[in-house]
């Protein structure tokens, strides 16, 4: 269970302006559930993830995480260590116990096979994103935060990776919170979609996706999408 109760989060920029990034926002993701966060660009989504990850403690509110296992994140930018190879980057994120694990299957699926010894600076952006995904997946986290993980990928690949994410998610009980701008993606994957207002971010609506994942084919997804936009007009 991830329980977020932010009363306010603001930044003071270098020129002294105070920016309210997150307003009064309550959000909870039950253990083992998949929630998507959707909101306009610059509304505060990344800020919310950072607060959950404990990377910024200057805010008014409380965040409770009851998952005790590993936490993994896919940042909005790959954040690979440029001076370590792809494989080293992934292995470094693993705890000592699983350091020797066989990762070739994962590399294969992600189209990274043969690039294990490349440095991040030698990858295309899409490849680097996949390496960042591999790092998060390899860890088998019990809480997974994703910040627009499937951008910069061609549609075929993105679909494959969404499949992989769904697989990872169902193989072990994983609590997932994913930020995306792609509503179709959200509808395909999520148990619940949380819609945010423009900055400062507040919850503007919650859309539970009740259709079982196995039955979400192209047509169903399109229908769900229409339903969602009807229920929450202005969501594009």
């Amino acid at each position, binding site marked *: 269970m991830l329980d977020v109760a932010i009363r306010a989060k603001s930044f003071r920029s270098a020129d002294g302006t105070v920016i309210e990034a997150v307003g009064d926002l309550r959000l909870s993701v039950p253990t083992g559930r998949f929630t998507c966060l959707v909101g306009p660009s610059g509304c505060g989504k990344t800020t919310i993830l*950072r607060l959950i*990850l*404990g*990377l910024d403690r200057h805010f008014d509110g409380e965040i409770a995480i009851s998952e005790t296992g*590993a*936490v*993994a*994140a896919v*940042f909005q*930018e790959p*954040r690979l*260590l*440029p*001076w*370590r190879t792809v494989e*080293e980057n992934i292995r*470094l*994120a693993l*705890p000592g116990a699983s350091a020797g694990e066989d990762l070739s299957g994962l590399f294969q699926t992600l189209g990274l096979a043969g690039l294990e*010894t490349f*440095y*991040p*600076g*030698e990858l295309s952006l899409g490849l680097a994103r996949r390496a960042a995904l591999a*790092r998060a997946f390899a*860890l088998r986290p019990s809480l997974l935060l994703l910040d627009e993980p499937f951008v910069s990928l061609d549609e075929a690949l993105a679909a494959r990776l969404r499949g992989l994410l769904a697989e990872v998610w169902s193989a072990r009980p994983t609590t997932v919170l994913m930020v995306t701008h792609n509503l179709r993606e959200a509808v395909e994957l999520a148990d619940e979609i949380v819609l945010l207002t423009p900055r400062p971010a507040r919850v503007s609506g919650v859309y539970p996706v009740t259709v079982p994942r196995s039955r979400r084919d192209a047509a169903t997804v399109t229908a769900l999408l229409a339903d969602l936009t009807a229920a929450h007009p202005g969501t594009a």
Partner: protein
Amino acid sequence: MHGLGGLGLRAQAWSAATFLGSLAALVFIWWAAAGLAGSRAFPPPQDVLAFIVTEAASGELAFHLGMTLMRVGAAFVLAMTIGSALGIALGRHRGADRFFGPWVILFLNIPALVTIVLAYIWFGLTEAAAIGAVALNKIPNVVVTLREGARALDPAYTEMATVFRFSPFRRLRHVILPQLQPYIAASMRSGIALIWKIVLVVELLGRSNGVGFQIHLHFQYFEVAAILGYTLSFVAVMLAVELLLLQPYERAARRWRPGHA
């Protein structure tokens, strides 16, 4: 994965040729300038070489150079270790930096003479006092350089390490040190040089051997060839260290940079 010296044979040959060419050019300029000057104060390369040969044959050169290198080495290890640790700590903790900043400026600007004399007076004319005094002189320099490096660390990587729960050691080795590499390289190179210069003073002020001791003896007779002979012997050792240790290490450390080759 390649070994440290990840250079092709041709590249290696080319690199050696450049090195030799560089030295040859330097010796030539020196030779020409000394010819023009024609002064005892500026002996030509062959005179200096002759001195080195004689001094080496007598065993003096190896002895004094050895003593100096031992002092330089010990002080270097001490200064780099303590200086890096302090520098990183100050760079990361603003409060500590505010408080200890003035101390750093103070120690940075205490003349070598003062530290050395005080160390000799308090701890006696011992090797430990000499090496300690030299290290103390160099530490603040390492601190300022590594403090800048630590301040410039990219938080993106630190945050990643926090999320993925890197152990302190893993964080230091894989996240922090690679970012500090250029700062460490800079402070190593200018560090050895500074330490050697202070060792000269230490040897002048209270040792009975070493290159500094010899250089000052020869200075009394204004034997510039001898002074240059000792200087260049040390420089030769430093060039060897540069070629055989520093450069291969740096090549490895910079492998990841695009267009590093």
